[in-house]
């Protein structure tokens, strides 16, 4: 797949740009600061796009992403509760929020029986709305924490990696890498499932078990991501589509491509968010600002 060469080159360029470009002078401190943003950007953008690709494959639905399944909103809700209680983002809360809502959505869909995946999407969208309302209530109650919750909702790569949290962040990244590799094992199943559940079952895939595994692991990954950088939208929806347009339908290729493209996209969006106004914008604002027109352009083409 020689298409990976230009994509990786652009990725490296994005890393370079996001370290070099910005309003402040290039001191070693600034470089360190931006380096930690780069690490978080690759981590978050890559995971969101990768999970989006996996979920779109599993559900055979182009609109599915971490948001439509409720896990991103659940993580935001959990994170907000953490901010309200402790005044700061606590990864554990976001993580359990994601898993909790994910699990709830799953249970609702399971009780109904029948075709699991249609109901999952419906339950996920409904739960997303509920979570958003609850976050609004928390924002109104919080007052002083409103600003922080806003950044959690829109995403922010500005956490500084320091001696205190270094080990924790490394651990999160290693865990995510292991989880993604585990999902990647199922690239062939995802190819097959695009031809319908019956075909997949006829070829020997245990649909029920497979859906549970994918759903729980993506929830876990989303929880990890949101707890570090907030709920960044649009990466998980748009990037997998672009990846499929460039690399074709085979998940063996388009999943790793999604990761690289997602990381690239988020790094560039973050760079824009730092230079576009005097105040730094939440990166999620920029991802939708760039993502929506780009997406429409690609689809009209």
């Amino acid at each position, binding site marked *: 797949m020689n298409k990976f060469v230009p994509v990786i080159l652009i990725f490296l360029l994005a890393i370079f740009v996001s370290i070099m470009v910005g309003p402040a002078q290039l001191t070693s401190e600034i470089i360190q600061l931006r380096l930690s943003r780069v690490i978080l950007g690759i981590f978050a953008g890559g995971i969101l796009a990768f999970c989006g690709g996996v979920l779109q494959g599993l559900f*055979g639905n182009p609109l599915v992403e971490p948001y439509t399944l409720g896990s991103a909103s659940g993580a935001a809700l959990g994170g907000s509760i953490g901010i309200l209680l402790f005044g700061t983002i606590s990864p554990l809360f976001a993580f359990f929020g994601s898993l909790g809502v994910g699990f709830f959505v799953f249970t609702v869909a399971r009780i109904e*029986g029948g075709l699991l995946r249609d109901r999952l999407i419906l339950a996920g969208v409904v739960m997303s709305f509920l979570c958003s309302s609850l976050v609004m209530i928390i924002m109104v109650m919080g007052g002083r924490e409103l600003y922080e919750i806003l950044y959690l909702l829109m995403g922010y790569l500005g956490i500084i990696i320091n001696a205190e949290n270094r080990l924790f962040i490394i651990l999160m990244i290693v865990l995510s890498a292991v989880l993604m590799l585990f999902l990647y*094992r*199922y690239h*062939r*199943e995802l*190819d*097959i499932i*695009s*031809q*319908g559940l*019956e*075909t997949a*079952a*006829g*070829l*020997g*895939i*245990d649909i029920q078990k497979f859906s549970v595994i994918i759903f729980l692991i993506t929830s876990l990954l989303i929880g990890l991501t949101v707890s570090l950088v907030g709920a960044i939208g649009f990466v998980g929806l748009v990037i997998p589509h672009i990846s*499929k347009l460039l690399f074709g*339908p*085979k998940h063996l290729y388009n999943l790793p491509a999604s990761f690289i493209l997602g990381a690239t996209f988020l790094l560039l969006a973050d760079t824009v968010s730092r230079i576009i106004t005097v105040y730094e914008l939440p990166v999620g604002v920029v991802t939708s600002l760039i993502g929506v027109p780009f997406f429409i352009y690609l689809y009209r083409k």
Partner: protein
Amino acid sequence: MEAIKAKNIYFSYNTKDVIKNVSFSLEQEEFLGIIGPNGAGKSTILRILCGILRPKTGDIFIFNKDINDIDKKTLAQKIAFVPQETHFALNFPVKDIVLMGRFPYLRAFQREGRKDLEATKHALAYAQVVEFRKRPINSLSSGERQRVVLARALAQEPEILILDEPTSHLDLHHQYAIMELLKKLNTEGMSIIIVNHDLNLASLYCQRLVLMHKGCIFSKGTPQSLINEKTLNDVYKTEVKIIKHPYKNVPQIFFHPKGE
């Protein structure tokens, strides 16, 4: 030894019983047709036989082994299923689709080997879709797509082939092509179950028929013994005229327009 043996199968969606006490078997190298009116439970019983649906009660044996004791991938090496229509959400090239038939033989991260590529090549040739192998699946006509799905099933190298109305949306030529292909596979040793609404085709190609009605088996037997005006009137509530096929000793059905 029977290829498939189904004993006292019951199945229900929610509370509605759709399969009631169905028992029958597929002999090895047999070409069996399941016929019956809409909603008789034909498609449901097919899905139960290939392990996609689990019966509420009853036993299924595949080559004398309980289906519940067979690992899903192992089962897919023995039985291949061709659904009535496949929707291709992702526009894979034809050869990739057929190669997916090798899934039951592959472990995670295992690359397709020479054996897999050979089986795929063979299946493409058999289903006469070699010329399309590089084309995206959704650029093909429905008849061509159905042959690709059949090729994917053949790439599974199954001993039993189960097909749900494979000819239902096809024109005369493609109907004939599919049925002839199945006949050829059958003479080479493949055991086949087919659900077919076209009773004339079923009568012409199947060695034995199972007639289902309202979730039960109404009757079983050769086309000659099973297809007669009384039975069809009882089950389909339709008056038909039956005469013998000009070249083959099987019954063929003709409608009888009212008042003529």
